[in-house]
């Protein structure tokens, strides 16, 4: 009797436990479903579809016509225009990342001591964060424009010859770099300012007592302490730089002579002007792989090299 009762009891407990579990799972699904469904439809599905397109010849309507495996990738590697675009992108990304990180750090160091008015200057330095791609491009377009542009007026005052920023292909890429770096500075400056404030003051005090030089302090105390943020800023800048589009569209349209034809501009042209979806998809996957590579490399480097507090 006793035994039978306990067993029945056990079954009831087990049943309610199962019910409970089921209920929990349903609740979890309900909470996650909106995000999961939308990520599925607008991120995972299109990603798979892009990979799929990259293995096809497509017609002008963007429909796949003939499966060609990885041929699109082989063709791209031999495509001089694409390889030039890729090289331009690499130079661009390298310069933007280097210039943004170094100048943002310099700005953060300049405002690192709490003097009267520091907050105001910090607001000034961070202000480019509120400037969008198209506004920044229009502002710089006016500076770069020939004759009545600000750049030429200043050069004229200094008795220097004018620079044809947007029409001379030795300067055009630098003009786009300048615009992008200027835009990036606000965010990077703010991030590095935060990092500098978190460096423990006692470390500096000890260094001061020991009579360590400023350079030594920077190299042995500041830099290791802020290196996680420095890496973070560098990676974010790099990934964004790979995806630069609007500045090219507004300033140069990829010209002159393709000198500013960055990869995303090429993708845009192939997809929506030349209507070559197969090629554009292949280029997009190349871009995705490059960005994945940067992210993974950064992750590994951070784990290995960067000192955490």
């Amino acid at each position, binding site marked *: 009797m006793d035994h039978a009762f306990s067993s029945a009891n056990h079954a009831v407990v087990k049943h309610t436990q199962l019910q409970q579990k089921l209920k929990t799972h349903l609740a979890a699904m309900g*909470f996650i479903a*909106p*995000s999961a469904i939308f990520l599925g439809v607008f991120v995972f599905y299109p990603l798979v579809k892009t990979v799929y397109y990259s293995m096809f010849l497509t017609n002008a309507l963007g429909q796949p016509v003939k499966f060609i495996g990885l041929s699109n990738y082989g063709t791209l590697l031999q495509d001089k225009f694409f390889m030039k675009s890729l090289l331009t992108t690499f130079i661009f990304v390298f310069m933007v990342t280097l210039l943004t990180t170094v100048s943002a750090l310099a700005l953060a160091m300049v405002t690192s001591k709490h003097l009267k008015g520091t907050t105001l200057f910090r607001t000034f330095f961070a*202000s480019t964060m*509120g400037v969008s791609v198209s*506004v920044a491009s*229009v502002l710089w377009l006016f500076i770069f424009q020939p004759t009545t542009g600000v750049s030429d007026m200043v050069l004229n005052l200094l008795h220097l010859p004018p620079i044809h920023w947007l029409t001379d292909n030795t300067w055009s890429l630098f003009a786009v770099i300048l615009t992008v770096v200027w835009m990036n500075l606000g965010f990077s400056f703010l991030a590095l300012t935060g990092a500098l404030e978190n460096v423990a003051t006692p470390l500096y005090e000890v260094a001061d007592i020991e009579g360590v030089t400023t350079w030594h302090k920077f190299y042995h105390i500041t830099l290791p302490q802020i290196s996680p943020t420095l890496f973070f800023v560098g990676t974010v800048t790099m990934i964004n730089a790979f995806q630069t589009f609007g500045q090219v569209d507004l300033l140069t349209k990829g010209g002159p002579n393709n000198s500013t034809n960055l990869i995303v501009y090429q*993708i845009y042209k192939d997809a929506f002007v030349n209507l070559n979806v197969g090629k554009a998809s292949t280029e997009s996957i190349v*871009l*995705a792989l490059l960005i994945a590579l940067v992210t993974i490399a950064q992750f590994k480097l951070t784990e290995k090299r960067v000192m955490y507090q």
Partner: protein
Amino acid sequence: MIITSNEKIWRYVLMIGLSLVLLIPLIVGVWVSLLPNNAILTGHYFTSQFTIDNYIQAITATPILRYLLNSLLVSAIVMVGQVVFSVLAAYAFVFIPFKGKQIIFYAFIGTMMLPFESQLIPNFQTLRWLGILNNYAALAIPFFASAFGTFLLRQTFMQVPLALRESAAIEGVGHFRFLYHAVIPYAKTSLFTLAAYSFLTTWNMYLWPLITSYSDNVRTAQIGLRQLQATEAVNSWGLIMASAILIMVPSLVVLLLSQRAFKSGLLDGAVK
């Protein structure tokens, strides 16, 4: 730490000098927007004949106000969508135990690594198939789910003791009540950060609205400015600059309002 007066002087010199260099594009933009057109055309920038004609012209003769309204609505819709979707998903990841949680979480986080360009063409086709190109829906719907937002909020929600949820569950408090009364009040800063972040990101979008909106009653401010720059004669710089300044105002306001939240919320979540 002692700051010598020498150091003070060079710091101020640098701060003032660098501010001027950095702010030149903005100062020039505002300045030119206030000049009469003939002064700009002839390059006579140093005049005291300031005027607000360019702003009046921009508001009355171009669809700039409509562009701004479009951007405002689209950014607000995405902001609400992202916050709601992210709150729900982050809550489940932190407070509800379920099978496959880790795999699903990594799948979410993995999407942060993917550039939007690798989804551009199929997304365009999906919206064309749905028949909602050139519509607010096309500008907003693809961005409702945000891996970044989910991650940011998950980090914050994890600071709420799990025991609190367990004892609440014993007392029969449901998930929504717990979320509303315990989690959300705790995570206000992060929610505010995410809201400002998604508003600004949407406000600044360029490539997607460029290919999905093509009439004035849908076009966002960013693409509207491109449109004005392309169609208004190259010589109405005053008008273009006035429009640019008008477009900048809302994002500056949002930024100033959220500055503190940004500094603590975003950086804490991202760096550590």
